[in-house]
């Protein structure tokens, strides 16, 4: 997605990509958006017993500028949706999103007037984590899935390969085509 994409997919550029992805995979800095009970399980996932430091992502950055993974943990209400969306936008590319817990992924047990039924209504989500709240080891599994996704060089929010970039250009043209 950097300069090497200008040369297209050759033996050299893809190896650079996989080398960079390997570095990214082992140093995912999460942005912990602990909203409700899942936030407590997220804290437990970072503490000594389940110890996320083994995967290189114990650095919980609370500012979106220095994080790659948006870990939305908790029931997202309509009022909170604008905040989550703003923080997602302010994160540098490439970025990934984990929707932790049933409430975040689908509104969970709160079918009420103030709860957004799943954050994928306003965010592209990479991994949904089941459970209310998901056990910390379940969350570690989600982190491993994100790491595999990074190694494969995929992300729902940033086109990481030349093909994905070309696809996105077409979609943009299509939208402009429709608009004017």
């Amino acid at each position, binding site marked *: 997605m950097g300069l090497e994409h200008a040369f297209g997919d050759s033996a050299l550029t893809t190896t650079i990509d996989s080398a960079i992805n390997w570095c990214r995979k082992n140093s995912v800095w999460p942005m912990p958006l602990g909203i409700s009970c899942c936030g407590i399980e997220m804290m437990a996932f970072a503490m000594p017993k389940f110890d996320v430091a083994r995967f290189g992502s114990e650095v919980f950055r609370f500012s979106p500028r220095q994080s790659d993974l948006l870990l939305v943990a908790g029931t997202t209400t309509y*009022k909170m949706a604008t905040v989550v969306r*703003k923080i997602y936008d302010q994160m540098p590319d490439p970025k990934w999103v984990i929707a932790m817990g049933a409430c975040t992924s689908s509104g969970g047990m709160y079918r009420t*007037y103030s709860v957004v039924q799943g954050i994928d209504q306003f965010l592209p989500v990479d991994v949904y984590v089941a459970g209310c709240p998901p056990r910390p080891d379940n969350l570690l599994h989600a982190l491993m899935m994100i790491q595999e996704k990074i190694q494969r060089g995929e992300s729902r929010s940033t086109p990481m390969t030349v093909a994905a970039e070309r696809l996105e250009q077409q979609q943009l043209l299509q939208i402009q085509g429709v608009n004017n």
Partner: protein
Amino acid sequence: MLTTIIESLRTRFPQSVLEVNEFRGETTVRVRKDDIVPVCTFLRDDPAASFDYCSDVCGADAYTPEERFQVIYNLYSMTHRHRIRLKVSVDESHPHCPSVTAVWPGAEWPERETYDMFGVVFDGHPDLRRMYMPEDFAYHPLRKDFPMMGIPDSIPLPRK
């Protein structure tokens, strides 16, 4: 069981105490809307009652044509360790009720929550805004006629 306090209340405010009933050992006093503040000041300052801790102010929707909303004050006394409940009914046509923040500053937020959830406007409240819902929300969710699942796009969502 708070017989002495109820008696002193009846003597001082004969026309404002409408009804007193007991259930599971708790006394509930229905009070007329207009003199809720004098009654509360009396209950707080009278040494025999001394209800100095306003535990909770909450609203309820009786969903009857007249006297639809009720505002319920759960009071507690730190010194005598007893509880009492005052009830005020507010009509839907004119949903106003005097605010007791002058008596207990702690009632400010529960009253704001009742305003947010039921639409009962508290006169004399220092800063009556919605407590939970966003300001541009045009309904009062805890009313019985508001659907639990809400009204679609009553609150805007950011674009995908």
